[in-house]
């Protein structure tokens, strides 16, 4: 079950770190870094039903107008 309730102790600090991760990278490099991040987190989560749920939510919100 994918947790969609608040789970980050400090959301602002997380967001800052996420943006910082991309500092001084070209867009191409940033895409690669994002892809690696997805893979690292997916392996950490492990539970494929949680991952499918997250994939579906990510994709559905993109498809909305």
């Amino acid at each position: 079950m994918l947790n969609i309730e608040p789970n980050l102790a400090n959301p602002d600090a997380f967001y800052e770190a996420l943006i910082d991760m991309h500092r001084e990278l070209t867009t191409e490099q940033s895409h690669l870094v994002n892809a690696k991040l997805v893979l690292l987190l997916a392996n950490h989560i492990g539970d494929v039903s949680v991952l499918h749920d997250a994939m579906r939510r990510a994709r559905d919100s993109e498809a909305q107008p």
Partner: protein
Amino acid sequence: MDVNHPAQTFDYVRSADQDSPVAALHPVVIVGAGPVGLTLAIDLAKKGIPVVVLDDDHRLSTGSRAICFAKRTLEIFDRLGIGERCVNKGVSWNVGKVFLREQLLYEFNLLPERNHQRPAFINLQQYYVEAFLNDAARAESNVDLRWKNKVVGVTQGDESVTLSVDTPDGIHSINARYVVACDGARSPIRGFIGQESKGQVFRDRFLIADVKMTAPFPTERWFWFDPPFHPNQSVLLHKQPDDVWRIDFQLGWDADPELEKRPENVLPRVRALLGADTAFELEWVSVYTFACMRMEKFRHGRVLFAGDSAHGVSPFGARGANSGIQDADNLGWKLAAVVNGAAPDALIDSYCAEREFAADENIMNSTRSTDFITPKSEVSKLFRNAVLELARDHPFARRIVNSGRLSMPSTYADSPLSTPGDDTSFNKGVALGAPAVDAPVQVDGRHCWFLSLIGKTFTVVQLIDANTLKITIVGADQRENQTVFAEPSGDWKHRYSERVGTTYLFRPDQHVCARWHTYDEQSIQRAVNRALGKNAQ
């Protein structure tokens, strides 16, 4: 002489059928004398069925083609009597290395579980396998091999199929109760009956080069993503017998196959890989594309399809020839039982159910490998490269790297031929529908392999006490049963069961079709009948 096998040719011989005023009727005619057709022919012959094999050519295949023969295939070949020759001639390897650009990402060791007779796989040029199968087929008086016999027409009747066969002496007709089309990816038989194989064609081309050299490269499988000597593409290097190395270069869709095959274009690619100082000779070059596809049904009336005619996969994972040989293994005993009158015609439908399922499994695996090796979109390539870059320092990512998942036999989990029995209460062992697993046993104090004791027909294996296996080869009736007693090794008990009373029933293709905790004669008889398609419930 093994060395001459690639050049071996076979003479056309006029058959009595060509002089017969009425078309002869044969129980089984196989079209295509490749690895699949010959495997089936030998298996049927050993089961007492006379079989005619028609081939439009008169020589073995050229070039290495299928080179990787998996453990299950070798076990099937053992029953046909050529397993040992293949293993002795073949190259066994365990270590694989994966490179990204100039860097070694990681290496893996596929060292198989100990105490199996056969290795996980061997590399061996297809022409050797065909040559060994040919020798075995010619030793069977039940096999009638007819070279330069090209099928030019197929007519289906209720009781038989009529084939028009073109030969150097002209066209004649023969009839068969069953025809098995093992005539390859472009199957003319498939075309004659108006069927097609459908699926996904991959827009990519690969160059294969067989290179002879004595350079001290290790006996390992090397796979490069984006190597400096062949940028933006993949390359695979494999060792074969006779100092022949197989190199597969990905070329991309825009490459011109005729141009790429020319030695002046191939040599620089090979030199870039091997280094300028390595002496080598080019033995064979080919450019191929591939598709993952299959026929919707492997049976059309009395015509059956096996191997590449029925299904095609990408070469990544060695699933082409290996799955075709498993098709033949699945079909052989069923066709023999039907022709002998021991089973109803409907048993053959289970061949389709089981092998169509297996084809889907193979297609799924080889499609996944293909999508990793040759990504089809920007984002697919992005994730592929992300996986590769993580793989060097992150063990989890190595498991995602997919340079081909090597062929494993299918488990027919939902087969109509299986009897549930006590299967669900086994907490280990060989599952219902799975092929038997090898292990050492002793017979009369002498070491032997478990697989060599089972599978000529239905076989019941019962652990009657901690040190004794009772192995019963089931005959046409009980008086013909043959019994062997064997002492199981620790590996056998670990792989099957330690519990006294455990009883396994194996089909003639060595797949498990029932298992119980206790021996019961009636349950066994019912399970055999069900596996023969007599009382499917």
